[in-house]
């Protein structure tokens, strides 16, 4: 799983039937120190995350399994909201 921050939502009126009713979130990937890393991606939401939440998400086959109806074409799904994160200091 990876860590990211919700920076927005995406609205689609026309989408695949199996994704109807599922919220789409714009996610900025973060590194272990919560610094932005990489380009934003769009993910399906399984936990009702909101703007500015730090979340974790998974890609691949597991993304589809994370939604209620597992037969869907999701390739990134938000699976949890992070309350706190501890990372040890970088060794010099």
């Amino acid at each position, binding site marked *: *799983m990876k860590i990211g921050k919700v920076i927005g939502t995406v609205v689609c009126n026309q989408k695949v039937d199996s994704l109807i009713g599922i919220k789409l979130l714009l996610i900025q990937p973060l590194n*272990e120190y919560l610094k932005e890393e990489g380009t934003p991606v769009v993910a399906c939401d399984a936990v009702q995350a909101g703007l500015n939440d730090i979340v974790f998400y998974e890609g691949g086959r597991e993304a589809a399994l994370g939604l209620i109806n597992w037969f869907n074409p999701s390739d990134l799904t938000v699976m949890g*909201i992070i*309350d706190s994160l501890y*990372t*040890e200091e970088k060794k010099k």
Partner: protein
Amino acid sequence: MILARVIGQVVSTIKLDVFKGFKLLLVQPIDIEEKPKGKILLVLDTVQAGVGDVVLVMDEGNSARTILENTTAPIRSVIVGIVDEIQTDKRGEK
């Protein structure tokens, strides 16, 4: 499976039900010299590892689901062991 070092932990209250009762740890994949290699991962812990431990991470979906005995768990990365020692002749070669 890959070798990694545990570098942090994550607390999450709102998550999918299959994650309940498991710890979530941040790991940094390492090479045989124990140097960091590649991007960090957030993994599920089944062996009670802690920060600083070198661990064995299963990074494959079907194997992870087998470990959790749940055929539809949306989980790919699971810690399956704590490494005591790595023996190799390749260490230090360039």
